[in-house]
Structures are given as structure tokens and as C-alpha cells.
């Protein structure tokens, strides 16, 4: 019984030490990206139903004319009132 326990203990000790050794060894990872990629936009196809307009365009529209609400004399009510208030 005691022998079996000693064997299990030694086996556990051995595997743990092996893992620790393996972790210490750092592997160098090199990631490579594509240096150039060409998209042919004209060739792209949209799968499924299209809900947006197929092409982007600017519609011709008339230029907005600014509203000019310049001061216009319509009446003299304040002046008429003032004349009476200053009446003696």
C-alpha cells in the first residue's frame, strides 16, 4: 500500500515538473498580414434583397433663395401714441 502511494506521488511530481519546464520555453509567434489587397467594387455583388439605391448620385436641385424679411414701415402707431402722450 505504502509502495503504491509513493509511486503515485513520484508520478505526480514528475508530470508537474515537466509542465513547468514546457511553459518556461516561449514560442515566437509571427503574424503575417496581407500587404496589398485589391477590391473590385464594380464586381461586388450583394446577396439577398436590395433595399438601398444601387448607385450613389447627387440630384440637381434649385438653389435655395434666402428669405429677406427686411424692415418695412407699415404704420405709425407708436408715433401716433407718443404724440398724444406728449400732448399738453
Amino acid at each position, binding site marked *: 500500500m505504502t509502495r503504491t502511494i509513493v509511486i503515485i506521488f513520484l508520478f505526480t511530481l514528475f508530470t508537474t515538473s515537466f509542465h513547468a519546464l514546457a511553459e518556461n520555453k516561449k514560442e515566437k509567434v509571427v503574424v503575417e498580414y496581407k500587404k496589398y489587397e485589391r477590391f473590385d467594387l464594380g464586381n461586388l455583388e450583394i446577396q439577398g434583397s436590395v433595399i438601398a439605391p444601387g448607385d450613389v448620385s447627387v440630384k440637381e436641385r434649385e438653389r435655395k433663395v434666402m428669405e429677406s424679411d427686411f424692415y418695412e*414701415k407699415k404704420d*405709425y*402707431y407708436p408715433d401716433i401714441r407718443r404724440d398724444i*402722450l*406728449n400732448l*399738453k
Partner: protein
Amino acid sequence: MNKIIIKILLTFIICANGFASLEKARQLYNDPNVERKNEKITYELIMGDYYFSAIWFATKHIVNAQKIQPEFEKALKALIIKAGPEIFFDIPTEALVRHDSPTLYFVLGLRYFHEKNYAEAIKYLDKIPDNNYLQPEIRLTKGAAYSLLGNSDAGYSEYKKCYTHAENAVSASSNDKIKRYYAILKETCLIHVARLKFTSKEYDKSMEAYDEIDKTSYKWPYVLLEKAWVKYKQNDYNRTLGLLVTYKYPLLESYFMPESELLTALSYHKLCLWEDALSVIDQYYNIYKPRSEALASVLTKNKTSDNYFFYLTHESTQMLEARHPFIRSLITQIKKTVKYNVEYGSYKIAMKEATLLKKMNRDDFIRFLIEETDTQINLKIKALNWYIKEYMYEFINKINDLSFQLFKIRIDIMSKKRDLIYKGTKLIADRGRGDLQHVKRTVDEQFWEFTGEFWADELGDYSFGLKSNCEEVKQRTFEDVKKEIQEEEKGQMKNEKESESAKGAKND
């Protein structure tokens, strides 16, 4: 010599009479058994020319009596003329109505007008008989009340009556000051007719009424701007500019109207003379910005004062000039107004009265009169101070408001200039000198060149002769230039080919 003696004698009689009346008033005041005491004291004080001292007794009588005597009506007339109708504004309505007095109805009508209750004002003014001495003022007030209520027909009819009554009063009065007062009132009625016609867009009739104001009239410089608006509405921008340029006349220096600058800029804008409009706008900012700042500094420092502005009008021209030339000019303008002159005249009467009273032996009665006169003087100072302050505030607010309006014109011009660039067009011509063919004239207007002449009576009858610049012509664009070069090259190539073929034919 005789005249001097007569004058001395008259002064002596008046003084003696005044003293006797005051003495009688004192006896009445000290007598506990006298009936209708306040009424009798009022008569005596008015007889002695102590109008401001009489106000308190007259007011007491109006409030306490059940009915006033016809003689008291005359006393009221004297008080209203010397001290103004507002002296009775604080009397309760029921007391004013109770006596069926035309003068008190006028006070009530005017008070309701102040309160913007125009219908009530008309109601009480209607109760005054047609032969009353206040008819010119009553008709003017009624006309204004109808106009403000939107009843232009009734307003017009009242103004016409106002004109007739004022004209009759001018012919009836022998005193020059009173004559001048009614002449101004007559012109005010005319101006109100012109304004009424302007509001109802009857511009020819409006102009006819304005043209009746004589050039020698006190009101005439103010009318120029209103006439310019009529011409502007009639699309006669050259005449508008001509009327407004009259304000540049040196003798009209104190009649500076910021609104005239706006109307000038608007007229140039309508004629598409944008550079001229922009130059007027720049000029406005350059002139009125420092003026506005100078005025604002005076106003903000003293806005709570009850007498600062009143005493400002007493400062010498040099002192006012040292504050700011614009303050001096504005004070000159205020001092020329009828309201200021009449109120100031009233203040001087009150001061004279107080000085006389303060020289007398002070018993209870005299002390009471001094106290009442001082109260009236303070009220006059406060009223004048308020008037001047309000005038200045209105002026500064107008400057700021017009500045915004001019800014809108500037923005519009910039927008229009940008549109021209986008469209590749430009306005037909640059600003040039005017021409007689652009001047609109009525049958009674003539054209004079004034070569080497100066006539004072041409003032206010100027017209510019500017051609409208609003027509657009296509401008050379980059594409046009490119096309022209290409055509030129084609032409050159064709010429070369032709000359070569001609050479070939010659050789053959």
C-alpha cells in the same frame, strides 16, 4: 421811456394784485367758518398767479364737492394750461365724472388713452361740447384713439376737425406763443392724416398731406423721413434717396435719424447698387457704434436717478461736448421737442412761484404753499427726467435694432453676390453717375441744374437719378475662355491651311 414807465407800473399792479389775492387766500385758510373754502382759495391763488399752490385746493374741491360751479371750470382751464392735465390724473374716476365738467372729461379721456383703453377715452371725449377751448386737442386724441382701434374713417374725420379747430385757434389768438402752439397742433393733425393714409396704402393722398407742411415749420425736418418712406413704398427710390440726403445739410445736423440710414441702404439695395448699400452700412456702424457706447455709459450709470437727466439738459454746450459730441447733439434734439419746452416752461413757472413764496414771512399757510409747490416742482423734474431718459433709451434701442436690420441687408447682398458667381453672371453695370431720365417727376415739379446757384428752398426736393442695376448679364467663365481659345486655334489652323493651299496653287 413811456413804455418803460408803463411796464414798471404794470409789474407793480400785478405784484400788488398778486399779493392782495394771496392775503385773501391766507384769510380764507385761517377762517374755520368759511364755506366752500378750497374752491374760494383756488380762485384767489389763481388770481394771484399762484397756479401750482392752487393745485392741492382745486383737487380737494373736485373730490369733495357734489357739483362744481361754472366759475370753477374757468379755474380748471387756467390750471390745465399752466400745469398740464396730468395734475388731476390721480383723482378717482367717480369724482371726475360727477361734475359733468368738459375739462375733467378731457382729463379722464387722456388718462384712459395713457392706459391704452381707447374706447373709454373716446366715450368721455365725446361728452365735451363742440365749442370747448380744448377742441383741437380733443379731436387729435379722438383721431389717434380711432386710428389705434383700426377705425381709419372715423380717425380721418376727427383729424380733419382737429385741423379746422386748430386753424381757427391760430387766427383767433393774438399771443405769438399760443399762435405757434396751435400752428404745431394743426401740422400734427395733418401729419396724422398722412400717416393714416400711409397705413391704408393710399400713398398719393399721404404725400399730399405731407406736402402741406411748410418748410419753415418746426415739424418739417421730421416729416422728411416719413415722406421718404412714402416714396419708397411707391418704388421711387431715387426720390427716397433725394429726400434723405437733405439730412446732410449742415443746419439739420441735430436732426440725425438712424432710420434714415436704413432707408438709404434699403433703397440702394432695391436699385441693386450693392456697393453703395454696403458703404452706407459700414458708415452706420462707424458712426453709431461709438455714439451708442457713449449713450450707454451715460444711461447705465444714472438709470436709477430721478433728476440726473433733467440737470444734464442744464449743462453748457462745452460741458456736453466734453462728454461726447453726440450727447450734446441728442440733448439739443430733445430740447427742441414741444413736450420738453412746454414742461420746462411749466417748471419755470413753478420755480418762480416757489421763490416768491420763500421770500415771504412763513406762517402755516405760506409753509403749506411752499411744501405743495416744492412737491409739484419735484414732480415736474421727475416727469422731465423720465421723458429725457425714455427718449435716450428709445434712441439707443433703435440704434441696436437698426443695426440688426442692416446686418440682414449685408447678409442678403453677400448671398446675392454668391448666387451671381454660381450662375456665372454679373450685374449690368458698375455704379455710375445719375441721369435725368431716371428722375420721376409730377406735373408741378421742375428740374433745375443749379449750375453755380444755391437756393435754400430746394431743400427736401432733391432726387437722385440713378439707373437700376438689377439686370443680369452673362459673365465669361473658364469654359467660355477655353472655348474661345479653341475657336481661335481652329481659325489660325484654317488660315494656315488656306495660305498653304494658296502657295501650292501659285507654285503650280
